[in-house]
């Protein structure tokens, strides 16, 4: 069990999303950075979709009421255990009584904390993700508060083997990190001001020639009016070549829609299921982690790729991930 001493800015339980209910208007929710979410789970010996804690910008203070195997992936929010810095993107065994704290937003802005067995919260509509606006799912349908107690589920065999190995390493220290982590070429480079690859949106051709050029040649700032639903961007106004009312249709994670004021909005995990604004672009799935790690004040620039390239990039990454999963499994089974 993990106790919440301080909740941080916005810490909520998320899995990979509530699928199957979007036809009823129920939003998908889920991790903003699904890649980091999956990696955190793999390194804790969990299933990829297990619920983890999504931590935003200012992290929480947590105390461990029992020995726990964890992993922290995603943005580097300077985590430390009992005052000692702890590395991200690896398995960490934490002894009972330890305190996990976060500090400065060093790189990115969202960290994912997985605990072996996953956080034990009830499933609502096929998912354990928190749907903040409807107060549903996750931990009591809300972000964490001081005093909350997070139970973890039954650890997998893999988690137990990882724990067994790391227990031997911990000796007299209060925590132990694995001596191997995720290869750096697999970790998305979440530098500030990333270049994000996009494909053309369905209404791309309705925009003026000038706006089409500006989309790809100007930087757009992530404004403070950005949240899990979407990032509101500021840059040159993107305008239609002539006014045209759109008919509402489905939107997706990473859809870039443009309201009449010309300031684009990139839709994210808590997006509505449908939208009526024209979509000028669509962020390639492979670059969603870069987007999710951008924080207010950062600027984004967009580079166009084809739909074929976008899918091929995604397939390439997933194939590497498959190898990595096998690698983790073999290392763990072989007692590291």
């Amino acid at each position, binding site marked *: 069990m993990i106790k919440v001493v301080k909740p941080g800015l916005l810490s909520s339980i998320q899995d990979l999303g509530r699928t199957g209910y979007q*036809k009823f208007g129920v939003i998908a929710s889920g991790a903003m950075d699904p890649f980091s979410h999956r990696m955190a789970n793999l390194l804790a010996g969990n299933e990829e979709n297990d619920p983890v804690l999504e931590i935003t910008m200012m992290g929480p203070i947590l105390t461990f009421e029992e020995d726990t195997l964890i992993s922290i992936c995603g943005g580097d929010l300077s985590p430390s255990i009992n005052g000692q810095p702890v590395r991200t993107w690896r398995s960490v065994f934490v002894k009972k009584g330890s305190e996990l704290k976060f500090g400065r937003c060093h790189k990115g802005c969202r960290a994912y904390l997985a605990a072996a067995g996953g956080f034990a919260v009830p499933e609502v509509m096929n998912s354990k993700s928190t749907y903040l606006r409807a107060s549903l799912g996750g931990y009591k349908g809300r972000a964490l508060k001081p005093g909350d107690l997070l139970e973890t589920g039954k650890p997998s065999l893999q988690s137990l083997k990882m724990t067994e190995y790391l227990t031997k390493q911990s000796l007299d220290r209060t925590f132990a990190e694995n001596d191997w982590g995720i290869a750096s070429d697999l970790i998305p480079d979440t530098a500030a001001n990333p270049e994000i690859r996009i494909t053309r949106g369905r209404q791309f051709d309705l925009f003026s020639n000038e706006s089409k050029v500006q989309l790809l040649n100007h930087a757009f700032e992530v404004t403070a009016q950005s949240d899990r639903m979407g990032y509101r961007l500021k840059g040159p106004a993107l305008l239609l070549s002539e006014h045209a009312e759109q008919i509402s249709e489905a939107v997706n994670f990473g859809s870039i829609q443009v309201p009449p004021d010309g300031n684009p909005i990139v839709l994210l995990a808590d997006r509505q299921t449908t939208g009526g604004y024209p979509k000028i672009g669509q962020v390639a*799935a492979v670059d969603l982690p870069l987007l999710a790690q951008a924080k207010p004040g950062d600027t984004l620039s967009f580079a166009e790729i084809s739909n074929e390239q976008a899918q091929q990039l995604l397939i390439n990454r997933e194939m590497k991930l498959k190898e990595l999963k096998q690698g983790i499994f073999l290392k763990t089974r072989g007692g590291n």
Partner: protein
Amino acid sequence: MRYTLHPLGDDAVLIELGKEISQETHQKVQSLTAFLEKHPPEWMIEYIPAYTTVSIFYNPIEAYQLSNGQLPFDFVCSLIKPLIEELTENDASEPQIVEIPVCYGGEFGPDLDFVAEHNGITPEEVIEIHSSGSYLVYMIGFAPGFPFIGGMSEQIAAPRRDTPRLKIPERTVGIAGMQTGIYPIETPGGWQLIGRTPVKLFRPMDESPTLLKAGDKIKFKSISLEEYYHWEEAEQ
């Protein structure tokens, strides 16, 4: 059935079945979704129907593996084509008729008088017109179970508020332009509020989590404040 296919990100195909909002296009959307409900393809994760489109979400990696190396979008399109071509517009299931009781005016409908004045009629006439119409749910979106409804009389149309309210209580019935709708959960919004229903539109613990779905027909029924409270209590 005429249609076009478009990518919607790397894990969805948008199927466009018409260019304008009409009962005819709605019928096509209904036929396709009825088919997807009855025979969900194994590669499909879920679908979102809208006025003129149905978007199907899939797992691109599973599709890639099933296809022996074809690009997921191309592969999924090759499976969708024969499926749509076999459909006829009569495949849609019979519409469900849902009666929604509404307590009009008063505290629940602070803009009823405005809607009446705007149209040069009495509040009673607004209620009479609103509750005697027959409405069609074209699509669900915006919020869980929020219906986009067609069929409202022009006689009670009213513009949105200049400044949206920060909080509109759940189950409030409103009018915006030529549309009428019901807010299933508390949200900010700019609609003119004319009443409230005691019936829950969003029921997350039920197997079917929303009262309404695309294709339903709605009839509003005017009820008294007493009936409202009686009904609301029964809903809890």
